[in-house]
């Protein structure tokens, strides 16, 4: 049975994520402020969609707006009014959205910017041409279509046949020309096929405990529908963070998506490798990419690909992987690791440094308050995993010399982390410019717990004790990203106190690997329950009032706040943690 996931009368609605499908640039969402539904295209000048309210969707009856409620499954969005229903789905070709009305007329309202226009093609289809966004075509399958493309606002209206009261429409998104070779299949057939496509995607994941099942489905939907490409400068299918907010594919996020797909090793491996398609001639990879050539090498993202490789080697069925897969990963990953050592260590310290906070993924963390470059404990932890991954890949390929070389490098970095950056309570930042160490309240300085038993027991126990202390970092919803008594806690920010997905994952898995299963489980359950109630948002604000400053936090201040839009990234973290919990439970059983 297909159950509604989002809607007017559901726990979560389309203000937090769009109705869309894997591979589709078209999506429909509800504006947080005016509560209207809008059709848009996942393309724009910047990472936050600059024209999300591209085309307003309304239902009408004899010219008057009809109120409606809506609900959606993975494959069908249904708008219900007193005069009937309007439904949306996607064809197997995700560039085509199908619409069916059984009663109301449909009104699409929009405005053109200068140099944009629309026209009625000789076929009768209406073509709208937007700058940067591309073209949107409206093709009336049944009913009547009328348009006004010169007034402000412009309109396209679809009216049902008078007798059948049915109208059907195809909305297409394309770059230059729309080529349609096949007749339109029946709406319900198309919707059923789309549902089946989603159901097949869900087979990539393992089972989750019952209380998390409904949210797991939403998480899978979030990940599935965030896939885009190949198209333009997206060389392969990648997972966008969100099709409206941060509408880009980010490098390190593909790793989270990969390691959550426990039932599909090939897809996991492909996702791990996908960003290396952009690897430049000195081994670097970009921070994020889009189909419009918005490939950013200004910074990169945390190098956790090695961490991902280790997770897959340790926890996946490897029978689907071949020597060629290992070789390909080794070649690319080793170049990337070398890039960090060479091109992020101009000061010749021997260890890679962050040159920009964005490279840590924790953009406004207090770890970088003293400037850059900075040798940071989280980066060194990632580097240990990277070197270890290269070693293990070399081992699988039978190259003992390289295996030993890379294990040596892993130990070299680990030794520095333990011997030099550990001060007895936490790890420190090292500032090569001043040749000083820097201590702060950022979770970054405790995150090396992710190294598990690679760390000595006294370090592990100190870290776990502090992470689980409600006077320090532990909240009802998970571990905060900044020490709770820090005067720099700003809950509205991403990494200055909010509970955030990537950190929770590293800490939970790290504590488990460190032998602290009970603490790991406790943290996991707190975080999963928080997501259950607050949705798959990037950051959860664990308090109404900022502990240090006393400011009240507006939880959903805007659609841009870290606590509001769902994120595919968080979806994968949710799935991964829930799957691990289920596995743990089954082992206990």
């Amino acid at each position: 049975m297909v159950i509604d996931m989002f809607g007017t009368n559901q726990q979560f609605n389309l203000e937090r994520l769009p109705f869309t499908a894997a591979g589709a640039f078209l999506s429909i969402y509800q504006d947080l402020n005016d509560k209207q539904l809008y059709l848009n295209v996942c393309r724009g000048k910047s990472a936050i969609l600059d024209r999300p309210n591209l085309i307003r969707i309304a239902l009408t009856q004899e010219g008057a707006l009809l109120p409606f409620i809506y609900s959606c499954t993975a494959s069908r969005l249904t708008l219900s009014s007193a005069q009937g229903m309007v439904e949306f789905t996607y064809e197997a070709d995700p560039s085509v959205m199908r619409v069916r009305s059984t009663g109301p007329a449909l009104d699409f309202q929009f405005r053109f910017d200068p140099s944009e226009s629309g026209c009625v093609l000789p076929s009768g289809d209406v073509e709208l041409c937007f700058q940067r966004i591309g073209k949107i075509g409206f093709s009336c399958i049944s009913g009547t279509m009328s348009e006004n493309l010169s007034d402000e606002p412009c309109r396209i209206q679809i009216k049902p046949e008078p007798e059948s009261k049915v109208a059907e429409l195809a909305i297409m998104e394309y770059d230059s020309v729309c080529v349609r070779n096949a007749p339109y299949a029946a709406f319900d057939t198309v919707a059923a096929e789309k549902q089946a496509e989603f159901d097949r995607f869900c087979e990539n994941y393992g089972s989750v405990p019952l209380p998390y099942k409904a949210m797991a489905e939403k998480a899978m939907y979030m990940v599935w529908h965030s896939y885009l490409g190949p198209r333009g400068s997206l060389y392969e299918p990648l997972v966008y963070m969100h099709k409206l907010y941060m509408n880009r594919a980010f490098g390190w996020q593909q790793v989270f998506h990969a390691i959550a797909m426990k039932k599909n090793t090939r897809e996991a491996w492909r996702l791990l490798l996908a960003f290396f398609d952009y690897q430049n001639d000195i081994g670097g990879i970009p921070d994020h990419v889009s189909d419009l050539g918005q490939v950013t090498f200004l910074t990169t993202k945390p190098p956790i690909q090695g961490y991902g490789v280790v997770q897959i080697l340790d926890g996946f069925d490897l029978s689907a992987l071949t020597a060629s897969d290992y070789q390909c990963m080794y070649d690319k990953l080793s170049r990337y690791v070398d890039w960090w050592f060479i091109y992020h260590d101009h000061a010749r310290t021997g260890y890679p440094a962050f040159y920009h906070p964005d490279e840590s993924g924790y953009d406004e963390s207090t770890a970088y308050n003293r400037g850059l470059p900075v040798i940071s404990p989280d980066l060194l932890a990632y580097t240990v995993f990277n070197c270890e991954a290269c070693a293990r890949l070399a081992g699988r390929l039978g190259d003992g010399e390289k295996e030993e070389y890379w294990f040596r490098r892993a130990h070299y970095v680990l030794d520095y982390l333990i011997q030099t950056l550990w001060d007895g309570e936490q790890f420190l930042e090292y500032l090569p410019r001043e040749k000083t160490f820097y201590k702060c309240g950022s979770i970054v300085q405790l995150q090396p717990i992710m190294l598990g038993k690679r760390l000595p027991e006294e370090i592990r126990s100190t870290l776990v004790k502090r992470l689980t202390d409600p006077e320090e970092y532990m909240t009802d919803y998970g571990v905060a990203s900044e020490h709770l008594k820090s005067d720099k806690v700003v809950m509205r920010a991403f990494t200055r106190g909010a509970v955030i997905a990537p950190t929770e994952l590293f800490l939970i898995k790290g504590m488990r690997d460190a032998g602290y299963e009970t603490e790991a489980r406790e943290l996991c359950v707190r975080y999963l329950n928080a997501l259950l109630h607050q949705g798959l948002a990037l950051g959860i604000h664990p308090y109404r009032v900022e502990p240090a400053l006393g400011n009240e936090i507006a939880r959903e201040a805007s659609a841009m706040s870290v606590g509001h839009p769902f994120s595919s990234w968080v979806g994968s973290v949710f799935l991964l943690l829930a799957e691990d919990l289920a596995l743990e439970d089954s082992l206990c059983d």
Partner: protein
Amino acid sequence: MMMPANALDLRTVVFSNRYARLMLLDLSAQGEPPSLCISVSRDDPTGVRRNLIRFAPTWGGEAIAYQYEAVPGLLTIHTEHGTMEICFESEDDVLRFRSTNGLGAAFFIEFFMHELFVDRLDGSVEVGFTSMGEFLFEVIKGRQSHDNTWIGPKMCATPTTILWTPEAGEMEGYLFWNTEYVEKKNLTDFSVCVAENQQRFARWLRMLPPPVYGFEDIWRQAGYLVWISELRPLWRLKEAALYMSRCGEDQRASAWLQSFGAMAFRRDQTLAFDLLFSFFALQDPSGTVPGTADDRRIDYAVPKSPVQGLALLWMMDRIGAEAVDAAQCRRLYAPLCRWVAWWKEYRFGSNGLAYHNHAGETLFDTASMFCGVPLQTPDLQTFLILCMEACGHLAERLGDPEAARLHLAEADALTEKLLALLWDGEGFVSMAADGRKQIETAPVPACIPILLGKRLPQEITEKLAERLEVSRTPFTDGAPCAAAELLFTIGLLRCGKTAPARKAAKRWLDRCLREGIPSGAEEQGPGSAAALGGIVFFILSDLLNDLPEE
């Protein structure tokens, strides 16, 4: 604003190099002290960032007043304490600075959120801008310092000054720009570098049509404008291409400009054909040739009128059909045929005429003609006929007379349709693509069929020529339009009206001499001089050199 004929005014045209994207421009208004800034010809979603890095010479660590003198290959800064020289290193995006009299340099930078400043602690500093790429700053002689700090909560660097201080009176340093990563550069001797740049420019000028007597200075100005407009391949821009402008809204390559550029460079077949081919390299699987492109964004949604055929015919005519390199013909033939096929497949109405869907697809400002209906315009048919004709000539050159015959028959058929459906007895008109309505046609597209030359009946060419003679400035709003002037002059020539063609070409050159190459910078802002003016200047110079005076 017209570019003054005898000066390299960096308020209008940038100081740069062939193939480079790095540039210096002057943001001051007329009468104000200069305000030089360093920027990059790259699209930025936050807007055109001309003032990416402000520059000033310094004395004792303080910015001082200056004037500048710019010639191709060298920019000299004059102050009361001496001079500083600035040049590009080879054809790279490396800008070099040198002073020998105690002058230093200061670079002022304001950052947006998430942008980058890092002192690499190896003597170099890396500066990065969202969408614009990265810079490396390093001094070779002297000292480099800066006052940068990071504001954590704002995820932003403070406004920063990078200071270059001389040692023993000498200072030499450079900026290197790249999209992905920046590393230290090994540089040639500064003086040698300047000399080589100037030699490169001189070699470039020799590739152009020679100047018409009396127009040498303006010819050099045009040469510089076009020289800096050719940018090297970068990522999605697979071939070197002419940008419409180095700065402003038009800092992109357009398909039609490559065609006109090919016409200007017909003396260098390699360069000409490379330009003509540059947009075919971006042709998508459906056959669409994009209208505009830069290194990141390729616009397939608004393909431009197919002027490639006109350019090819012009080149073959002036080079001599048999002298055209067969390999180049082979390279162009298939993509040009696909381009023609695209129009036939996707943009032909049931009446056998082609249509534009959107106003942006046309070469001229004809937006008012489009009222939500696709339009069959006389200029579009003209350009397509010429493409078909060009396919025929290419086929002939490649030794396939049967294919040549078919292409030429196609051209003939479309010419007949044009005359039957879009000639109303007095002039050419446009029609809605459904064939039901004639649309009032702007003057420019209405006269473009003169390019068909002797394909048209004489009475029609006479009427068109008369209309052109009467109208001194054919562009709809009265401003000169370089492209229109070019096309009409060529059209007159193709009709056998040599004297009027000569007169039109001379009129254009005289106007450039009087007022400078039309740049469009006044409308588009500093540094946005359009390459088109220079290109048209060269094509018409070429034509004038070949047409005897009566």
